[in-house]
């Protein structure tokens, strides 16, 4: 096995190069994010969480949704370490993470993590939401290592 690569600090991709689009099913998530509230789509009937938000609950077929405010903490489920800015191609260390959201069993987000070196990111690591302003006035949930190097 090759030596562990020393990447250094994990950075967030610059918000000014990130765009999103919404539809009526997903927009409440992004409207909450604008106000720095982390939410996830929950079925109002059977309480099953689903992300991304979609028209129907896959468990009970209900169209009724809740948007509960979540604690804003999460656990790293998996990740990659990337080293090029996808827009510019320049050297840039960032760590896309797949996180399990606390308070929303089964719901995940894909984001960047910061607050630690890239090589110190671990599956199972606790992270806390950090808000990144992106294009068109939207706000993106990213995450910060709860205790650096943990």
């Amino acid at each position, binding site marked *: 096995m090759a030596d562990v690569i020393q990447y250094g600090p994990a950075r967030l991709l610059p918000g000014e190069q990130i765009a999103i689009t*919404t539809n009526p099913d*997903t927009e409440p998530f992004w409207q909450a994010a604008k106000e720095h509230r982390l939410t996830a789509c929950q079925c109002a009937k059977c309480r099953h969480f689903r992300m*991304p938000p979609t028209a129907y609950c896959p468990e009970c077929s209900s169209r009724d949704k809740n948007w509960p405010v979540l604690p804003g903490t999460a656990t790293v*489920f*998996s990740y990659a370490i990337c*080293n090029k800015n*996808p827009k510019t191609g320049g050297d840039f260390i*960032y760590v896309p993470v797949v996180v399990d959201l606390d308070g929303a069993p*089964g719901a995940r987000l894909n984001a960047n993590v910061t607050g630690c070196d890239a090589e110190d990111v671990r599956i199972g690591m606790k992270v806390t939401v950090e808000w990144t302003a992106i294009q068109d006035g939207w706000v*993106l949930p990213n995450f910060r290592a709860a205790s650096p190097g943990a």
Partner: protein
Amino acid sequence: MAWSNQDKCAIVGVGATDYYVRGKSWPRTINDMAGEAILKACADAGISIKDIDGIAYYSGAGAGYLDKFDTASLMETLGMPHISFSASLTSGGGGCPGAIGLATAGLMNEDAKYMVTLMALQQLPQHRLGVVFGANAPSPESSFLQPSGLVGPGHLMSVLARRHMHLYGTTQDAFGEVVMATRANTHNRPKAVRKEPLTKEQYDASVMLADPLRRLDFCLETDGAVAVITTTMDRAKDCRHKPAVVHACAHGGQREWGRAFAWMGMPDPHFASSGHKFTADRIWAQSGLSAKDMDVALIYDHFSPMVLLQLEDYGFCEKGEGNDYVLSGKLRYDPATGRGVNGGTPVNTHGGNLNEAYIIGMTHIVEGVEQVRGTAINQVRDAEFALVSGGPASLPVSSLILRSA
């Protein structure tokens, strides 16, 4: 229960262009290459292009990822007098071998007599697959993925590979062995893009593109076209070659896999898998066979870890034991004996997407046909059954068992 269409159809012709490094096929057009592959497949089968009356596509009839095939245009270009079947599987490369099942369905329904399945791929700078996810404006759904900077298939796959390493102790050494074991099969293949032997030192020195994956874990970016012709067994007897019999074929998958790495919502153990378990179970149920009955396995290898994960899903080894299976040399083909190594089943005797060429799965079907005909360059001795897989990708994924006649 045996599949009702078992052994009723066969692949009777294969045709391909040269394989070009990404973008180097220009100034040929994509329909020029598609035409060459189709005409060569007809010649290989010993039929006329005028006999072709059905097309069974996959990838939504995509030609690469931004171009589209159109049956009417192909008819005008190549002169087929009439077409009575024109259909496609959905999603992407995961449906490649499943398209032979679609062809079989059309043949058994007597919609058509000779079915073409094809792919042509031309990755001009604006069509480069490796960045295709990031180049698109994010949809409302991909707005939950793309901002993370997971912009290429390799980025996405590395997240799945990482989870497998975490759960089962899988190593990057095993990914390297997938690349080296299949590279060893291309030195004698004139059309292969990468033919030189690969050492572990060279693999370890390969640049890390999306940790834990290196450049050499990513498949080639190539241009070219491949077509195959499927027909009924009674017609196959009149064709030039020994038929490659369609013994089992299935496409689909289960909800837990769904959009897979375009979503990342898969629960364990599906997350660190190839998403093929459902389809694997179906073809084994259709055929009454299992992995140990396969003489050769042509495993879709867009990224090296996905070979390991498919070997688990198809039951060549237990879930979580792919690392040790791979590292014990069981993917390798031994030219001296014409068989596998250490009790394994030879994988990708053509070199696969990683080493020979990447035409979105079609080269695996061609190798499966040549193996059961007995005409492969790296022929597995007495090959009776060849497994061909497509994907891992968003559903449907698919697989095919070809049988020697």
